[in-house]
């Protein structure tokens, strides 16, 4: 599975007074799973459920903390948000 860096989608000239960035909210558990699933699809090209299954089976571990696969690291760090037993 390749996880080459994707072209960055830029956010030009953000303003901290912009309501888009100033607004805040808390996600429900269902929304957290949806966000994780969306990120897994963006980064790894697979569902969040499939990623978790393959991660648990030992796949991709060599890419975690590899700065050339930073988005994978970001995804793995979010596992704790969808699995309470992950700490």
């Amino acid at each position, binding site marked *: 599975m390749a996880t080459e860096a994707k072209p960055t989608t830029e956010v030009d000239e*953000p303003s901290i007074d912009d309501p888009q960035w100033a607004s805040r909210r808390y996600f429900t558990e269902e929304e957290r799973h949806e966000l994780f699933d969306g990120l897994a699809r963006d980064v790894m090209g697979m569902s969040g459920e499939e990623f978790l299954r393959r991660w648990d089976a030992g796949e991709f571990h060599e890419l975690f*903390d590899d700065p050339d696969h930073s988005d994978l690291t970001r995804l793995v760090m979010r596992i704790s948000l969808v699995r309470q037993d992950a700490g």
Partner: protein
Amino acid sequence: MLASAYFAAPHAHLATFPPPTRAVRLRSEHDPHLVIDLFYTLAQQPRAQEPWSATTSGYLYALRDAQARDLIAFHWHPKGNSPVTLPHVHVRAQAGPLPLFKAHIPTGVIPLATVIRFAIVELGVQPLRPDWRAILEVSDEVPSTP
């Protein structure tokens, strides 16, 4: 405060900016882009003057180029499968014969404010606000669990 409607979550909170797979283009001639993932926990302190305290529990701060490659990446992921659980930094650089990018260069826990200050002072990023120094000084006070 007489009451609080907040209930501490069983896991860490995540403050992320901007949304995943995006990066904020910073105002600088070097065209750096910023990614922030900051994990933190909240704890209630009934007897303290401030009833709630926030503690940093992990982070990934990255300064990237326009091709989404990390140039400087500050990591702290105490959990996960990496053998390196202490805070460290990756730098896309070669120091003489030493390839640094894959190396985990040890650091202390780096507050987000320190990274922002580094970007402004050392990398020439233009701040949005004239009072950025005062804001970052306050942010420096957020504690972390080593």
